[in-house]
């Protein structure tokens, strides 16, 4: 089986039941997407399929029906995504383990609502962070909005 991942066709193995998360990590070898719970409860595994945020531990690779974008595919070394830039400006990550998922969720939020309210942020940002970086995540989302307006 092949899937488009970060703009490239990639072999994702031959087990259609394998969750996208494990195909990405163990077969394709893109490991920025993390395993946290395996039951859709934490969001560490969030990626975009066709631009929508999904919890990749819940989607069998056989039922992925669009191009997949992971944290490795949202920006480039020369030009980070504006949300990644905001994350650095606000010094968000602590252990960092949840942050790929948080950034993917934030990008999806801003694609849908370019200038979210606090309530919008609360509703969209449901991922767990055991290090408790939430106030900084909130600040970084707002920072991304202002960086976007400057640009």
């Amino acid at each position, binding site marked *: 089986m092949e899937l488009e991942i970060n703009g490239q066709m990639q072999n994702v*193995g031959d*087990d259609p039941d*394998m*969750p996208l998360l*494990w195909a990405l*990590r*163990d*077969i394709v*070898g*893109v*490991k*920025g*997407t*993390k*395993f*946290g*719970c*395996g*039951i859709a*409860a*934490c969001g*560490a595994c969030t990626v975009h399929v066709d631009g929508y945020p999904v919890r990749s531990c819940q989607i069998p690779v056989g039922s992925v029906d669009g191009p997949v974008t*992971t*944290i*490795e595919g949202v*920006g480039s*070394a020369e030009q*980070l995504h504006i949300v*990644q830039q905001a*994350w*650095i400006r606000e*010094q*968000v*990550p*602590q*252990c*960092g*383990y*949840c*942050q*790929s998922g948080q*950034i993917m969720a934030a990008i999806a939020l801003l694609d849908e609502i370019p200038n979210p309210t606090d309530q919008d*942020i*609360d*509703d969209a*940002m*449901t*991922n*767990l*962070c*055991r*290090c*408790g*970086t*939430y*106030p*900084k*995540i*909130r600040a970084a989302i707002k920072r991304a909005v202002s960086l976007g307006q400057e640009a």
Partner: protein
Amino acid sequence: MNVAKIARRTFLIGAATVAGGVAVGYYYVRKPYANPLEEYLGEGEAAFNPYVKIGQDNTITVITPRAEMGQGVHNTLAALVAEELEVGLDDIEVEHGPGDFAYFNGAMLEEGAPFAFFDESFLAEATRTFMRPIGKVLGLQVTGGSSSMIDAYDKMRQAGCAARHMLVSAAAKQWNVSAKEIDTANKFLINTVTGEKLSYGSLATAAARIDLPGELKLKARENWRILGTSPDRVDIPSKVDGRAVYGIDIDLPDMVHATVRISPRFGAESVSMDDTAALAVKGVEKVVPVQTTTGSGYGVIAENTWAAFKGAEALEIEWGEATYPKSSDALYSAIAKRLDSPADFSMRDDGDVDQAFADAPRDKLLEADYRVPYLAHACMEPMNATARWKDGVLDIWAPTQAPTVLQMTCAGLVGVNSEDVRVHATMLGGGFGRRGEVDFALYAVELAKQTNGRPVKVTWTREEDMRHDTYRPAMLARMRARIDNDGMPVAVDMHLAGQSVIASVLARTFPSVPPSGPDKSLVDGAFNQPYSIDNYRVSGSAVDLPVPVGFWRSVGNSCNAWFHESFIDEIAHMTGKDPLALRLELMKAHPAALGVLRKVADMSGWGRELPAGRGLGLAHTLSFGTWVAMVVEVAVVDEEIRIENVWAACEIGRALDPENIKAQVMSAAIFGLSSAMGQEITFEDGEVVEGNFDEFDGMRMRQCPAFHIEILETYHKMGGAGEPGTPPSVPALVNAIFSATGKRIRTMPLTSEIDFVA
């Protein structure tokens, strides 16, 4: 060194048994460890000391040998060296470096001394002086106890200073001028007479051979450029684009994947096992037994992690019976029984407590029992490790807080010396004390014995992680106070009972070492608080149960601070005193405590008129050398509690990176608040019930309050940053709920009596 001997020495100290036992010869204390970098040098690289190496191409590498688990330790450690080496953080590469005894942590054991932080008596100081070198003799490379900066503050600045001194001397020789005539800038040495320049790298090899004078002069604080500021963290760029490598991301040529199923009943083994269905799972290669001091069960080796998980699920195993109280209720009863008999020990016993209570009239007496449950760490990254056992060398890649402890314990599984075990530390997806354990590495080594030299990465499921944690012990507290006619407490007596963390760690990590004296962590956060009360006793009783318990962010302080600070609040309420005024009075001997109390009162507008259904709660805890006063504000919304604001004033003595310290205090407070908001590990049939975040969750964004944190630097000793925010968060919350609702809750989690806005 023999493991049992090492361990006995180590843990005796942790258990605060100082007298006898430990003989530390001057020779061992003085003799430096060999520089571990010598073994790993690249072409043209020169090592100046265990912390600094410089390449001919002018690449400067600073070794930051502590676990980066989110606390930003690599940044501040690197800053200590960079400050003295006169380079910027942008000018250097930062590496964790090899696991090695040379990177011992001396300060952590010092913190283990059974004295309050403010106790500077001869005995307290003598004990600390005595303990510091023991960390060196044992070579304990451990990250914990909020001790990294206290430990590194002198030694890593000295490492930078020494390297700079050697470079300057080499340049002086080269140019035949005096060292005074040499300046440094941007990784170059400058001859101020002629204007000539040479890179650090071009002189590195020559400089590394230069002898150091007996004493080096460190920069005065007013000349610091980096320390005391908050530079961007060096680890953050790799954490926003997916590049950071955690233990779970290790990928090696020819590697196989695996997971484990360890007995869910502690100490029990399997009675029968059928792996037919597991072996039928596509991609599963092998099922192998695992037998270690931390648990026994099976490993499933497969082509990929998913196959290993499915294989493990398909294993049919009947486990042996639990030989201990099987339910939460039965466990709580076993602990409660200890409260009815005299305590094992007291670590504070001022005045004559028994006498003070003997004739106390009923209406001057306050009594209360408190209870907290077992808690999991629930690090975001599930436990994992990778091991390779090939050609007589054992390699371990792991997100670990204790590389040299892994070396010592894993060596025995394959019958080599600890020197023949190489530990490669990765980034940690959370630690909180859980990753100072060795179980994840032991299992990986067990599996590596069965893969013919192929590396094996062992990843636990979340359920395996949550049901095989080393839990924060459940604790019960019996408190009483006698109030005088002015409404002041003249006697306070606290008896705390639960499992000893030290005894539990010791039994699974170094089973040949017999248990030792009283465990300070049983009473930590209660016996050593800066209160003056005439008759004041804090006692502990260790309950012997086989549930594995361990170091959970702030350890004993995590619950004892709640017992202490909510009980103080109860006293204030009973006597009609303002909780702030009462604390100011009782802590008046300690200006540092008064400073943070007044500051937080000011920040939070303590005493302001509040509408009904709103409350402020205050708490103060001195832990890990840092004095933290915290105020929490809650609002009742549709009969549910919403935490709206947290104010904290923290006296840390010296703030090496103020913004990072604030981030740690916030993180630590959220960690504590999360526990109070609903976390509980429960038991049925001897097994942990909760398996995943649907049953044991942490605070989420929509529940997160606003934080307002200030750092003070007036105390004459530096404190730690990673943990002190946790202890006061829970009592401040509980006290706020009391003030908003009149409900005094004495059992954790609070969800047993109230609901939080979801």
